[in-house]
């Protein structure tokens, strides 16, 4: 795939040459290919070849349309990833942010790391058996590190407490034609059981199996920072335990690989914070409802004709999974 995408390659060459070589070496962009990425960003993999060395890189481009929720700009995301990395989080290394007013729009280039992000492989392959044993503790350590990044270092990261988010997801939900009695109940329950949060922190916002790059020893990088915000750190723990991210391993509440108690104890040791199980439970109910609203949103994007796709249509039928999970959480039936 070294042909094609000439404008993109030209632009990357122009941008990366000064960032990667101080001596003005010739630089060639090769093996450029688009990866299937999240709904909110386009991801490309490529190699930047200098005369003396080559760099395996990733380009993340913002996709303004169809973005759901208050996602960070790619510029903010790049700054945040860099801050997190300096603070001991296993985050990718950002090589360069795209300048303003370039034809590609917002984006940044980061180093490509070895590892697997597909949850099913991480949970099943023998190759990751040792990683699975390490993941819970590593999640705890990385979450503790994220939650300890001084807020003074975080420019313009939006604050989103439970109220703000409830309002956002409620109004999104009311914009779609499907009403769900379970979701109605969950919204009411979440309004009535808001936890008292005194120690707000930087929250990753999408820390789950699927956004963790994993090698044979465990996490090699925490990916997808675009939903980061200032909020309740327990939100990250609850989201990590949402059943949808256990990928069938319901008996292992932490991402399909670990137990709650192990996560909570390891997080307490690493962060010095106290984990209240009912507090995490709140955010797990919240996360399950949130994923349900996102499923409705995906179906809506398909049905509205703005970006039709079979995947989006099919995701609409995952609402009943969220309903059953919300109910089993509220009825104490969820491991």
């Amino acid at each position: 795939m070294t042909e094609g995408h000439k404008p993109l390659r030209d632009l990357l060459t122009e941008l990366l040459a000064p960032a990667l070589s101080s001596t003005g070496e010739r630089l060639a962009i090769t093996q450029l290919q688009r990866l299937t990425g999240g709904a909110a960003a386009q991801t490309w993999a490529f190699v930047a070849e200098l005369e003396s060395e080559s760099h395996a890189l990733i380009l993340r481009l913002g996709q303004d349309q169809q973005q759901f929720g208050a996602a960070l700009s790619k510029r903010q995301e790049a700054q945040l990833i860099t801050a997190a990395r300096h603070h001991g989080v296993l985050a990718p290394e950002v090589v360069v942010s795209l300048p303003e007013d370039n034809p590609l729009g917002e984006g940044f280039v980061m180093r490509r790391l070895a590892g697997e992000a597909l949850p099913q492989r991480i949970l099943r392959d023998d190759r990751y058996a040792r990683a699975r044993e390490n993941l819970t503790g590593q999640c705890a350590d990385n979450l503790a590190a994220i939650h300890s990044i001084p807020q003074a270092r975080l420019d313009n990261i939006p604050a989103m407490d439970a109220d703000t988010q409830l309002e956002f997801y409620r109004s999104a939900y009311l914009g779609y034609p499907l009403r769900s009695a379970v979701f109605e109940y969950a919204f009411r329950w979440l309004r009535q059981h808001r936890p008292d949060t005194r120690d707000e922190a930087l929250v990753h916002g999408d820390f789950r199996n699927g956004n963790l790059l994993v090698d044979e020893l465990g996490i090699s990088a925490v990916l997808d920072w675009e939903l980061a915000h200032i909020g309740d750190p327990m939100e990250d723990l609850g989201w990590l335990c949402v059943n949808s991210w256990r990928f069938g391993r319901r008996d292992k509440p932490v991402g399909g690989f670990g137990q709650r108690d192990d996560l909570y104890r390891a997080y307490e040791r690493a962060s010095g914070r106290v984990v209240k199980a009912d507090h995490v439970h709140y955010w797990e109910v919240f996360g399950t409802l949130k994923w349900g609203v996102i499923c409705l949103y995906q179906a809506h994007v398909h049905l509205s004709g703005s970006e039709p796709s079979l995947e989006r249509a099919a995701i609409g039928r995952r609402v009943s999974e969220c309903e059953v999970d919300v109910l089993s959480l509220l009825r104490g039936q969820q491991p």
Partner: protein
Amino acid sequence: MTDSYPGATDLLKAVSECLQSEIVPALDDRALQFKMKIAVNVLAIVEREISRKPESNDRDKEQLETLLGEAGELSQLREKLNDKIAEGAFDGRDEELLASLQAASLRQLAIDNPNYSTYQSLTKDTRVL
């Protein structure tokens, strides 16, 4: 004056089997293989919906009438329940409501994805539906 023959679910099954056994193996592109998996999955949802939805709707209606204490059209009963829940009319009857909602959601999940972990686990021992 004959019924449709083969029936709708027979046709869906035929399409699905053809896609899986003949089309998927001929595809080199992994992205297309993945799409085809989704397509086969969606056909299975439609197949289950055709065979299960009428009875599921009947059960929904019975449950709604019990919860609301009145008879009516299914869509109106559903709307009424949603409004009443949002207003807090079921506060204090939470367990009864949640048990009823769970039975209904499991019926829908039996159509959408009966392989789902929570479905498997909740329907394994007892017949919740």
